[in-house]
C-alpha cells in the first residue's frame, strides 16, 4: 500500500523550455497538420505569439524532468503496475515555442478501491510562463493495479 503520508508531496518547481523542434515532432507523430504547430508566420497570422504547442504537449514536462519517475520512486510504486487513470487540462493562455514554463505540482490525494486491489494517486500541477501568465492547470490520476 502507498503510504498516505505522501499526500501533500510537492517536489521543487520544474522549469521546462518549449522547443519548436519538439512541437513539430509531436505534431507529426499524431498527424496534426495545422501549420500553427510548425510555421512561425502561420502561427502569428493566426494571432499567436509564435508556434503553438498542441493541447496535450505540455504533459511532456514531468516525463522530461524525471518528475514522474521520481514520484513513482518516492511513493515506492512498481512501474510495471502503473496505469494512467484520468487526465485533465484547464487552459488559461497559449503555450508557444520559446516559452519557459514553470511546473509546480502537488499530490492532493491517495486512496484505494476494491480492498486495496487498486490504488489511486491524484496530482495537480500549476503551469506558469516566463511572462508570469498562468497558462494551464493539469489534473492527473494514476492507478496502481495489484494482482
Amino acid at each position, binding site marked *: 500500500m502507498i503510504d498516505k503520508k505522501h499526500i501533500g508531496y510537492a517536489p521543487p518547481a520544474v522549469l521546462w523550455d518549449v522547443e519548436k523542434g519538439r512541437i513539430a515532432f509531436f505534431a507529426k*507523430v499524431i498527424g496534426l497538420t495545422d501549420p500553427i504547430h510548425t510555421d512561425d508566420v502561420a502561427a502569428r497570422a493566426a494571432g499567436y505569439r509564435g508556434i503553438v504547442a498542441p493541447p496535450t504537449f505540455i504533459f511532456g514536462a514531468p516525463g522530461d524532468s524525471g518528475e514522474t519517475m521520481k514520484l513513482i520512486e518516492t511513493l515506492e510504486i512498481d512501474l510495471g503496475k502503473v496505469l494512467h487513470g484520468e487526465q*485533465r487540462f484547464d487552459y488559461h493562455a497559449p503555450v508557444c515555442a520559446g516559452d519557459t514554463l514553470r511546473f509546480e505540482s502537488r499530490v492532493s490525494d491517495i486512496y484505494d478501491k476494491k480492498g486495496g486491489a487498486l490504488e489511486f494517486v491524484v496530482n495537480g500541477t500549476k503551469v506558469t510562463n516566463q511572462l508570469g501568465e498562468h497558462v494551464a492547470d493539469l489534473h492527473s490520476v494514476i492507478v496502481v493495479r495489484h494482482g
Partner: protein
Amino acid sequence: MTFDPRKIRVGDTMPVLALAPISRTTLALFAGASGDHNPIHIDIDFAHKAGMKDVFAHGMLSMAYLARALAEWVPQRRVLRYGVRFAAITQLGDRIQCSGKVVEKLDHDGRPCARIELTVAKRSGEVTLAGEALVALD
C-alpha cells in the same frame, strides 16, 4: 460539419477521426515526442516481466489523437478545458476512432461555452477513452 460558434447546437457532432492500426513504430515515436519513456509501451521484455502479453499504447497517445480530432474542428484557442478518463487499454493493431458531440450550452466563468462529450473507441465498440471539452463560443 464546420464549427460555427454562433450556430453551434446541442446534438451537433464532431467529424469522426479514424486512425490507422496502432503500430510499434508509433509507440516508439510517441515515447520520444511525449517524454513518456515508460518501457511498458516500447520494450516487450519489460512488458512480459510486468505480466502483459505485449507492449500497449500510451493513454496519452489516444488523448493526443482525440485532441487532434477536436482541434481539427474547433480552433485550439477556444478550448478552455479538456479532460478524459482512460477506460480500457489500447493494444497493438487496434483501430481506434475519435468522435464527439455537443451535449450542453452553458456559462463558464461568465463566458458562453459548449460542452462537448468526447470518445475514443475500438472498432469493436469498446470505449477506451471517455472525456469532455469546454469550448468558448464568444
